[in-house]
């Protein structure tokens, strides 16, 4: 636990700015390149937005826990909720050629993180594990 930073917020969109600030600080501390930090911020924000929208169906009174761990290879972000179990097979961004509102979050998450997976060991709720390697560390 020693090198971990852990932020717990209510599942209300107004707290997402705090997750973004923290993501930027952790990204810099991990020495992720300046140009990639903005993408990282967006990706973590989108993952938390999806928890509010899909796991909690818009209920703003639940909890979201975001944990960051820096390793020599990069940054690991783990997002926990107690909401509806996600079916990873149904999580898919929209076809980018099919213009409609929504369906971009998953694209933003996947283009930034090298590893995106739901922890199958989590009993109730979800644990999304995101890993971003430093350039050249994959």
């Amino acid at each position, binding site marked *: 636990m020693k090198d971990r930073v852990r932020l717990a917020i209510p599942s*209300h*969109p*107004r707290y*997402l*700015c705090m997750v*973004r600030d923290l993501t930027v600080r952790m990204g810099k501390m991990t020495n992720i390149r300046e140009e990639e930090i*903005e993408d990282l*911020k*967006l990706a973590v*924000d*989108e993952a938390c*937005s999806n928890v*509010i*929208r899909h796991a909690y169906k818009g209920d703003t009174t639940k909890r979201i826990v975001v944990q960051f761990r820096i390793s020599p290879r990069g940054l690991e972000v783990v997002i926990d909720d107690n909401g509806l179990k996600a079916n990873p097979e149904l999580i898919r961004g929209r076809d*980018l*050629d099919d*213009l*409609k*509102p*929504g*369906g*971009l*979050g998953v*694209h*933003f998450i996947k*283009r930034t993180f090298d590893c995106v997976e739901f922890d199958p060991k989590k009993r109730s709720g979800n644990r999304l594990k995101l890993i971003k390697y430093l350039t050249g560390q994959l």
Partner: protein
Amino acid sequence: MKIELTSHSSHIVIVITGEIDMSSSPELRARLLELIHKKPPVLFVDFTSVSYIDSSGIATFVEGLKGMMPYGGRLKFVSIPPKIAEIFGFAKLDKVFEIHGSMDDALRP
């Protein structure tokens, strides 16, 4: 996020300042749809002071554009910061929205 309406050569310009995220995009949506309801031929959005946009903000503009298409209205984005332009490009929306460097560029016929 802060929204201000100004005008430029008798066109409405929506000037947005700050972060467009899941928390602020409902307000943007309300303002945008209210304006589109009046069927303006062109609507400008000034991005100069937008520091952040997430997928909910983008979805709001896609919804706005889809509301303008039936009557042939045009949604024009002006002064998009490079980082945000890159996001629109990645999402293949740089061809869907009309993107201009400045109001003067945008007004050129």
